[in-house]
């Protein structure tokens, strides 16, 4: 059975972005409909040419830094390219950061308001990172 999964990325720490990227990619390639809403500290990593390394919040993140773990940015990109996941930047975060849509990675869709996202998410499961 395919599900609708809605993910909200808030944090800018490595472990949370990694876990969100893992769920988004695996769910999307397994036939689930996935939408990811990026706001607060998470969005800055998806500006074109932005630094990709997020700070670890604990020892697990430090361990991952020493291993060949797929970068979270790649996992989100694969979720979109291989599994048709929607990557949605929060329009409020875009305004606060004074960003235009074309400054984000090309897999990102148009800025989306919270009301719109929550309306879509009524149909499925909402996970927050």
């Amino acid at each position, binding site marked *: 059975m395919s599900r609708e999964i809605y993910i909200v990325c808030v944090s800018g720490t490595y472990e949370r972005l990694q876990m969100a990227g*893992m769920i988004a990619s695996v769910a999307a*390639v397994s036939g689930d409909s996935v939408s990811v809403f990026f706001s607060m500290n998470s969005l800055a990593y998806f500006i074109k040419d932005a630094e990709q390394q997020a700070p670890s919040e604990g020892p697990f993140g430090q361990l991952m830094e020493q291993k060949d773990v797929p970068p979270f940015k790649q996992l989100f990109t*694969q979720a979109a390219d*291989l599994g048709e996941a929607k990557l949605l930047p929060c329009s409020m975060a875009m305004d606060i950061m004074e960003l235009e849509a074309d400054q984000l990675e090309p897999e990102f869709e148009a800025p989306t308001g919270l009301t719109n996202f929550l309306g879509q998410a009524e149909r499925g499961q909402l996970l927050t990172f």
Partner: protein
Amino acid sequence: MSAEETKVIDARNTFCPGPLMELITQAKQAKVGDTLELLSTDKGSTEDVPEWVHKVGHELISTEQIGDTWHIKIRKAK
């Protein structure tokens, strides 16, 4: 001679979900009937790959451990 091909995907030393995502990337480009052999040192692949294959409707041919590497063969069914 068969037109179907076997492609080996070496995803050793990468961690979940790296091997699965590399397999899927190659599966998208393969033809129906092609065999894909994934090499993984991530033990989780032996559960994740069959689960994915079952879910999306491909065919699991075999799973075999040689040394510290798992060889997981699938056939693209659609």
